[in-house]
């Protein structure tokens, strides 16, 4: 294997309902840094049906080149056709690095590609760097349930590949003046030969449950005592207009369903305000919320690790503090709204 034949940093771009997944834009931001260090091109690989139109967006967010496989057979993500397309692209254009979002389909695709090429694949990366002269990718990730961080290398194979956790890297501000080259590719695939078929897609999470998009998340833990006690979390979320989050232990005992779980095996959230109430602050929980703008902890144990990971903490009983909070917010928020309305009128 001659490493000099492998050039360029690639991002596998996910598109759903005509929208580029946020993680793909984040990866373009991270990939731009790597490409600049290596003085090479940053490419996006776009696979889908009717996806060509999003290419200009990828340029604005940092790509120099976009490879496009646009065909009805790619309407829904399926391992087989997507893998065929990406393998085709790899064999033709030989990248040195491919990054994927650590999303259900990104992980699925990356695992298949790594096995086929074969090459190394680092899972759930949270820190990325590259050696300028050798092109060695330094992919670091939490391991053993978040107890340690490890840097993983792939010295003898190219391309080097990693899946990268959503919401960790930063997208660049879009630059409307940036453009690039679109390279249209094609492979022969026939629907009759595909071994899987998507029969139906069911979207089931309501807006409220999408805690990864909420500005305020009120999360409760085992300290809420019972499903009834956990209602306080719902009530506080309600007055604040926020979403409800939970620790894994709460999900496990069935006080709330899995969509609400924050952490390593749940969702990663970065709201403007995160409340952790009756949550001990285990590392697996903290990794899912530590990038929130403002973290507030309420716990009756002054030694709870959550106080290490918050900006402000109250040592106290949630059953005394939270009802007080609810009451006070109920008084104050309408006043804010009123003041704002007056302000609007004055400006009008």
């Amino acid at each position: 294997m001659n490493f000099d034949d492998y050039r360029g940093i690639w991002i596998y771009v996910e598109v759903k309902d005509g929208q580029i997944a946020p993680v793909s834009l984040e990866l373009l931001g991270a990939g731009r840094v790597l490409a600049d260090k290596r003085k090479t091109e940053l490419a996006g690989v776009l696979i889908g049906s009717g996806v060509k139109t999003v290419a200009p967006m990828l340029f604005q967010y940092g790509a120099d080149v976009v490879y496009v496989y646009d065909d009805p057979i790619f309407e829904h993500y399926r391992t087989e056709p997507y893998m065929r397309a990406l393998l085709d692209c790899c064999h033709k254009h030989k990248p040195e690095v491919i990054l994927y979002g650590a999303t259900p389909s990104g992980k699925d695709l990356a695992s298949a590609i790594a096995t086929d090429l074969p090459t190394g694949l680092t899972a759930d990366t949270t820190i990325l760097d590259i050696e300028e002269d050798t092109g060695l990718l330094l992919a670091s990730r939490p391991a053993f349930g978040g107890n340690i961080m490890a840097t993983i290398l792939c010295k003898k194979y190219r391309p080097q590949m990693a899946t990268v956790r959503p919401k960790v890297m930063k997208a660049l501000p879009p630059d409307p003046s940036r453009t690039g080259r679109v390279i249209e590719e094609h492979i022969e695939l026939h629907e009759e030969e595909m071994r899987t078929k998507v029969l139906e897609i069911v979207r089931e999470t309501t807006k409220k449950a999408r805690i990864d998009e909420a500005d305020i998340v009120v999360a409760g833990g085992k300290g809420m005592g019972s499903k009834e006690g956990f209602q306080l979390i719902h009530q506080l979320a309600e007055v604040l207009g926020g979403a409800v989050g939970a620790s894994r232990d709460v999900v496990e005992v069935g006080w709330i369903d899995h969509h609400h779980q924050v952490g390593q095996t749940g969702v990663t959230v970065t709201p403007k305000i995160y409340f952790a109430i009756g949550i001990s602050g285990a590392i697996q929980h903290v990794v899912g919320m530590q990038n929130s703008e403002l973290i507030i902890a309420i716990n009756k144990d002054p030694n709870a690790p959550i106080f290490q990971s918050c900006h402000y903490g109250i040592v106290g009983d949630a059953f005394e503090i939270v009802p007080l909070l609810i009451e006070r917010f109920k008084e104050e928020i309408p006043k804010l709204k009123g003041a704002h309305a007056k302000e609007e009128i004055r400006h009008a």
Partner: protein
Amino acid sequence: MLHIVACIKQVPDTKIIKMNPKTNTMDRASAPAILNPYDAHAVEEAVRLKKKYGGIVSVLTMGPPPAVKAIKKCIELGADEGYMISDRAFAGADTLATSYALTKALEKIAKQRPIDLIICGKMTIDGDTGQVGPGIARRLNIPPLTGVKKVVEINKEKGYAIVHRKLEDGYEVVKSQLPCLFTVEKDINDISFAPLPNMIKAARYQPTIWTADDLEDVDRKQLGLKGSPTIVSKVWAPPKPEGGKILSGTKEQQVNELLSIVLEKKELFV
């Protein structure tokens, strides 16, 4: 008669494991070895499918000799047969080398009894990758169905399976040819209590154990550390956060101070 194979792994319980702060290595003695929690759901699902459609459930693991205990746990859960591949040659395997060795073992099992379905856990709690299952599927050239949260139907005569695959905002209903491989989510089932006859069977059970030499057409260069493209170059403790400000005063004062901190972000409330 379905033949379902669940791939399972024995892992240290990373929830209670202690780390050596000097070397950043795990103190394995500090944590009991358990059946990977996600794999318990894989076995449970295999056993449920067996009860529904008739068939045989085998479990397969790659690991050191004590991993027999994890196989016994699967027998308690209702598995019929256990296979273990154990050899120094397998040590230090990353996901690529793991899926290679497991595939060789699956090929050997399939010679004795053709396999209709392979079920893996979503991920292991020590490796945390979820890459081994799709790797096996690729090597066997069968469709991988990751994130399965419900099995709707298995039809061996007509050769298909229909499942629900978890998506970020819902699920999709997928039909796949058999044989195929599932990786399963935790919410696919609740683990049943092991009935007494299973416990008795498990206590006496001895799995079939193979070394690298027992497997056929093995390319030794693809096994263990040698066959692993990824290397761990550095480990360090995750940075300790600095800690926040603890509010003081009476409850009412604390609540009022918190209120003013929160309401400072007034754009969120208007």
